[in-house]
């Protein structure tokens, strides 16, 4: 019988061959099937498969994408690679698979893998099939851009670059557009921080000007529209507010690019510009755009620069593609992760994560951080990449020697003791929401919202989240309202926090732990709740004070009125002179709106 290992080894050898030739659909399906089986059964035994494996939606989507593009781009046998990596126990693909198409959550700042070009490149580097590309600026004279002062109040920054002699086909062009969309959505925060414009350089003539002026003064035909429009009409058309260029309007950042300079397939020279309010982000975005697609230029990875004349006359050349260099201690990496690898091995691991690394000596390595890795901020990011390449599941687990004595938070401890006691007395525990609508906390109790010391929410999605509760009562009443077919009497309780405004607190609020018990029946049963109160007081060793003095013990004070409670059936609980609670029969005006 052929063992699982043999099957996989054969497959591996086949697939290696296939990586550089065509692949057939047959193999892709087989590759997927291993992956799916692993996901489903935690093992790769084909034999165990009794039913046809179902691929997840996302895997299917990505597979379709790859199927389409596979014939044009030989290196995109991503799923075969994924399977191989799985088998080889390398979990690095999962970092790379934070890519949207594979359906995993991502506000991950790994911008270098947002497009298929970047993802496949990163994977090939990981498998040591290809070198880390060296991006360089061409010697050609750069084109010029000038920033005019009007823009400083609105969108002061512009950066740019040129990709010369670039060949797009349908798929790579779509990928190009998609990358812009993704960057706009995530990094550029919906174009508010940075706006990307891409233009066909052959249809326009530098130098370019970045200016701002009145909407009425500008005529512009925007991308894929038939007619020119006045800019203010266009504002209505696009429902957003911004300012525009004067002459041949190339684009109205951050809304839309112009139709005049739109890029179509097989165009040769592409001019990319980013207008922004944040220089750092503008550079990151520009760098990602050019480094991802420079592979399609006739001179691969060569990028042409753009000189931008600032308002003060200074000229800055973009893009800046230089690597950051950092010297790292190998011992420190080992210490952070909990592994033991020497300098050479560490360098190899980091190289596989697109970080060009050289060994200096037995403890030091020099890491070149490319512009594509804007997510590397600190040594710990580099250490993480090393761990990813090593494989999280390969790290030996150790238990920390930290010895501490455990402790409960006293308030929680007491709350738990009380909760048990109330339940022992025959009450069901409820767990209700903290946020309510204003009527639930004020009007339904006959109170004015202004007199309630509640916190208010600025951006509730529905009116159910307008304010924080100052009492546990609304929640319990709503619970009863929703459980009308439960046998009577209904006895509910809750021990939980309410939020009160408190100017002495750091945030201006504080939580207060409350106990609330409710008895619901055809007759109020005040004595039942009263009995519960007496029982609770016994349990916390507080004696009843018959003389109703304020020095010790508790008693019920029935002076005073409250619109929420039935007249004559309402008292305050006084403990050592302090009002610690109320006990009462609810007023019909309160019961009705709730139940």
């Amino acid at each position, binding site marked *: 019988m052929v063992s699982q290992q043999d099957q996989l080894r054969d497959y591996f050898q086949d697939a290696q061959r296939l990586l550089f030739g065509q692949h057939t659909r047959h193999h892709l399906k087989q590759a997927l099937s291993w992956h799916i089986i692993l*996901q*489903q059964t*935690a093992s790769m035994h084909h034999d165990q498969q009794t039913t046809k494996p179902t691929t997840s939606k996302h895997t299917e989507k990505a597979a379709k994408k790859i199927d389409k593009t596979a014939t044009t781009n030989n290196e995109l046998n991503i799923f075969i690679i994924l399977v191989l990596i799985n088998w080889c126990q390398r979990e*690095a693909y999962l970092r790379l698979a*934070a890519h949207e198409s594979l359906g995993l959550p991502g506000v991950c*700042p*790994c911008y270098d893998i947002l497009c298929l070009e970047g993802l496949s490149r990163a994977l090939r580097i990981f498998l040591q099939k290809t070198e880390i590309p060296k991006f360089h600026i061409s010697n050609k004279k750069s084109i010029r851009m000038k920033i005019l002062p009007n823009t400083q109040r609105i969108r002061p920054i512009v950066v740019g670059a040129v990709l010369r002699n670039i060949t797009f086909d349908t798929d790579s062009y779509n990928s190009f557009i998609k990358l812009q969309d993704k960057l706009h959505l995530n990094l550029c*925060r919906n174009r508010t921080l940075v706006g990307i414009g891409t233009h066909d350089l052959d249809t326009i003539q530098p130098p370019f000007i970045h200016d701002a002026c009145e909407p009425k003064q500008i005529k512009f035909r925007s991308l894929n529209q038939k007619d020119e429009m006045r800019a203010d009409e266009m504002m209505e058309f696009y429902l957003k507010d911004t300012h525009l260029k004067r002459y041949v309007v190339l684009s109205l950042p951050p809304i839309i690019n112009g139709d005049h300079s739109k890029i179509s397939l097989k165009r040769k020279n592409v001019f990319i510009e980013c207008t922004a309010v944040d220089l*750092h982000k503008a550079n990151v975005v520009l760098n990602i755009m050019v480094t991802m697609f420079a592979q399609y230029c006739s001179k691969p990875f060569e990028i042409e620069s753009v000189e931008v004349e600032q308002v003060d006359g200074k000229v800055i050349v973009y893009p800046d593609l230089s690597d*950051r260099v950092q010297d790292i201690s190998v011992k420190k990496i080992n210490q*952070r*992760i*909990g*592994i033991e690898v020497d300098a050479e091995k560490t360098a190899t691991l980091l190289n596989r994560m697109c970080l060009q690394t050289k060994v200096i000596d037995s403890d030091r390595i020099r890491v070149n951080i490319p512009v594509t890795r804007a997510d590397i901020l*600190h040594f*710990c*990011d580099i*250490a*993480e990449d090393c*761990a*990813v390449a090593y494989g*999280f599941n390969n*790290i*030996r*687990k*150790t238990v*920390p*020697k*930290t010895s*501490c004595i*455990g*402790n409960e*938070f006293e308030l929680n401890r007491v709350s*738990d003791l009380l*909760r048990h006691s109330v*339940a*022992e007395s*025959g*009450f*069901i*525990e*409820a*767990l*209700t*929401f903290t946020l309510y609508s204003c009527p639930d906390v004020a009007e339904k109790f006959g109170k004015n919202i202004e007199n309630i010391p509640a916190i208010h929410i*600025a*951006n*509730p*999605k529905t009116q159910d*989240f307008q304010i*924080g509760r100052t009492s546990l009562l609304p929640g319990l009443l709503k*619970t009863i309202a*929703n*459980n009308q077919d*439960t046998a009577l009497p209904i006895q509910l309780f809750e021990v939980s926090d309410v*939020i009160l*405004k408190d100017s002495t607190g750091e*945030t*201006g609020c504080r939580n207060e*732990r409350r106990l609330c018990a409710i008895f619901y029946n055809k007759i109020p049963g005040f004595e039942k709740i009263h009995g519960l109160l007496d029982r609770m007081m016994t349990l916390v060793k507080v004696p009843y004070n018959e003389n109703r003095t304020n020095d010790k013990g508790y008693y019920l004070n029935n002076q005073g009125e409250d619109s929420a409670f039935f007249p004559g059936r309402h008292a305050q609980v006084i403990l050592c002179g302090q009002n610690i609670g109320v006990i009462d029969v609810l007023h019909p005006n309160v019961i009705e709106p709730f139940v």
Partner: protein
Amino acid sequence: MNNGWLQVDKSSKPALVKRKVDNIHDEVRDLLKRIQSLQLSDSNAKEVVELKKRKLVEDVVINYFIVTKSAGFSTNISKGEAELTAEMLQTGSWKTLHFKQYNFNAKGMMPSYGCLHPLLKVRTEYRQIFLEMGFTEMPTNNFVENSFWNFDALFTPQKHPARDAQDTFFLSDPAMTTKLPEDYVNKVKQVHSTGAFGSIGYQYDWQLEEAQKNVLRTHTTAVSTRMLYKLAQEKIFKPAKYFSIDKVFRNENLDATHLAEFHQIEGLIADYNLTLGDLIGVLYEFFRKLGMNKLRFKPAYNPYTEPSMEVFSYHEGLKKWIEVGNSGMFRPEMLLPMGLPEDVSVIAWGLSLERPTMILYGINNIRSLIGPKVDLEMCQQNPLCRVTAATDEQ
């Protein structure tokens, strides 16, 4: 006329009925007479069926009992006793009395009882596990937090999507916090904007007003941060293990498994030279106590941890790997501005309380577990929560 006794003479007007034969033999009458004197034994005979149809004869069922005296024969009538009473014991009358049979097929009388909430029963189990592992509970009774402690101190940039109005509840009243530790705030500002402590930072303009905004906390990690800061202010650093289980708030879109408020479980360890291997080891110990001993780890992303790992466990029942938690090592950009020693690292992990509870009790809709739409009957019938640790196997 059927029997040929009579005939109709149509010749005269009006028609006359005339006798046809002189003597008749009435068989029916004979049959009836025989039945009456109990001579006929076959009640299903054709003729008898005819008579039944004509309602001349009907079936009568007579039951009879043969009664004989048995051993317990008595001329007095006595009822079976329902219960053995104290009086019977005193008088000794129980010796001669007859007792009714119990009906063992019926159910008993349910005692009146109260009960605890299912989710909070699971919470008790998790608290127990942490205490067994030597963790100290953090004071989390503070739902309102300011952005500084909830985001900025955790190295989350101010333009991060999580700080969007879409995802976070901002307060309109009280809207801002004014009391923040000035020195610490300045260090945090620096590490965000220009970089510090070995980091290039995020390179943006950090605004104090943004940090002062009050929010409903989106994670209990805000409290962990406060605890670590307090720890850092001590003259001598002492290793610590903290945990908390409490409410957090997210302004997300709601569906069958998501609510605006839910409970987060969090644990962290702060000590010298902790490694990622230590985090993996602790997670194995923690989840083993919950009955899971097959774990896998996947790289993930949090603004405040690096490395970050998603934790997956193999669910035998569902036959697939499911995510059971999130974990990571806190970034130096978060720890160093506090003043913690450089070789102190903090490993942490978290999960929600609702999800394991729903899986444990087989509940599909979170609203039937928490909030006013809770099914009270479900709460009353809910069994004891007992989490069994997994046995040792490699």
